């Protein structure tokens, strides 16, 4: 018997002892194939829009388009940014998102803290009320709100859009901050109190630093919620649209390079944000069930 047949025999016996091993290895290989295919499904369109957005305008109508770009320039994105109204809309979008973040944190974070720390009467009723808002398409409420905002004089203002976006973001803020505060051990806070900290001191010196990374991640996500929202922003504005509202209103008459650059322009900061908070994504959603 040669050495190779001995090894082969050994291998055959090893497999005979563990019949499931081969099947399992095959299963893992299939999982890797699935993982790669699913990643391609997510990433390929992002790659293509990036290539399109950075193709110079005089090559925009080349066909067939080369998958590996032959001409690269920032000209198209630059042309989009200089188009009339874009810079103003960009500013509006940023400010609306910041106001949204401000109001929803100011109103939502204390509620989230109370929900995490105190057992009070009506706690579960409150929780249910917050959760039930998620079972409705909130943005559609922009239509009755537009009528109200006209009488209040805040139609077509940054504040109006921000208030609508806060209604969208607030339930998320309450539930997420509550799930973040739950992870900070109550004992640490109590220990600080017994060592002479005031309630506020214990919060700012113990709870806040521990909760901060999670809170920052939640803040970035809230900001993106507003940055990405199209429908309500379109209904609630006229002369002062946010960036998505401007793009959706001008889309039909716009040139192809304008559209593609617009898409990339809206995508890039949002994807950068998601990448920043990648470690917190599961935590943010696991107890919220968005």
């Amino acid at each position, binding site marked *: 018997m040669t050495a190779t047949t001995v090894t082969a025999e050994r291998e055959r016996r090893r497999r005979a002892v563990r019949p*499931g091993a081969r099947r399992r290895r095959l299963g*893992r290989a299939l*999982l890797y194939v*699935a*993982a790669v295919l*699913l990643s391609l*499904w*997510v*990433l390929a*369109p992002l790659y*293509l*829009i990036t290539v*399109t957005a950075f193709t110079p305008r005089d090559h925009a109508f080349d*066909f067939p388009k*080369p*998958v590996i770009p032959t001409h690269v320039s920032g000209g198209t994105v630059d042309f989009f940014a200089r188009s009339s109204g874009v810079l103003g809309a960009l500013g509006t979008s940023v400010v609306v998102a910041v106001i949204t973040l401000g109001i929803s944190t*100011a*109103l939502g974070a*204390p*509620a989230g803290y*109370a929900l995490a720390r105190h057992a009070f009467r009506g706690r579960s009723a*409150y929780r249910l*009320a*917050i*959760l039930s*808002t*998620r*079972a*409705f*398409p909130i943005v*559609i*409420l922009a*239509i*009755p*709100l*537009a*009528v109200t905002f006209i009488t209040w004089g805040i139609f077509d203002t940054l504040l109006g859009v921000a208030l609508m976006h806060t*209604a969208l973001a*607030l339930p998320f803020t*309450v539930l997420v901050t509550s799930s973040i505060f739950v992870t900070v051990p109550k004992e640490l806070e109590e220990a600080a109190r017994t060592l002479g900290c005031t309630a506020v001191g214990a919060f700012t010196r113990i709870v806040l630093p521990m909760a901060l990374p999670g809170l920052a991640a939640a803040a970035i996500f809230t900001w993106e919620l507003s940055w990405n929202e*199209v*429908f309500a922003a*379109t*209904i609630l504005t006229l002369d002062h649209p946010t960036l998505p509202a401007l793009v*959706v209103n001008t889309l*039909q008459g716009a040139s192809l390079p304008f559209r593609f650059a617009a*898409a990339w322009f*809206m*995508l890039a900061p949002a*994807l950068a944000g998601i*990448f920043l908070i*990648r*470690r917190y*994504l*599961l935590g943010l*959603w*696991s*107890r919220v*069930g*968005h």
Partner: protein
Amino acid sequence: MLPSLAFLAVFFAVPMFQAFGLALQAPDGTGYSLDAVRQMLSDGAFTRALGTTLLLMVAIVPVQFVIALGMAMVVNARLKGADLWLYVFALPLGISELASGIVWFSIFTEQGWLNSVLQQLGLTHQSIVFLDYQRPWLVLATIVVAEAWRATAIIMVILVSGLQGIPRDFVEAADVFGASVWQRLRHVVLPLLKPSIRVALILRTILALQVFATVVALAGGTTTVLANEAYRWYYRLRDARVAAAYASLVLLLSLVSTVGYLVTIRGDEEQLG
């Protein structure tokens, strides 16, 4: 606590009733009438918008579910670089409906990426018109693809956190008793995943009801859905009452679908949180 409730009362509960009130308002602003509702129902675009919305809902939800379950199982299998797969799959969480519509427009348009690739591979010799307004089915399919690409991440994340709550022993026990992959999925994993599945279904259906910008970007006004009609009546035709009638219809549909899911997929109520 109270401020947040007050805010939601003013900007969520009140407008909800206002939507119905506005839809039922008489044209002269005094008293109630079914005038706006009648106007909505007799509008030529109504049946198409309702039909397309319901069709989208029915088509998108299962497609997304299968993809999301696949992604969740890949993440949960703890392959090498498990975190990396999760980050990649979760990226679309940051993609807006409008951006996603334009991205897929760049792929499906006549001189777009899909035709480029098909011709470079020699599979076709002439460009195929995917966004052919004579073939609404094809346009609808592109909307389903775009929505599946964008909004699957949310379902995936919910399912992954659901899967992580299932003790590994359960699945391993089933494996020891000789259950195949499919049997394990069907009889062990899916039943335990029920609460997550229910949350995911409710949220996904509501997202499908408010699809708007994807349709604008891909169909360019030739195919329409309920949210687009609400937008058209409010923004272009300046009739808030008919727009509110559409808004009320969307609200009612979301209520019906949520109650439907709660009744058909029973489980621990607290799990909604």
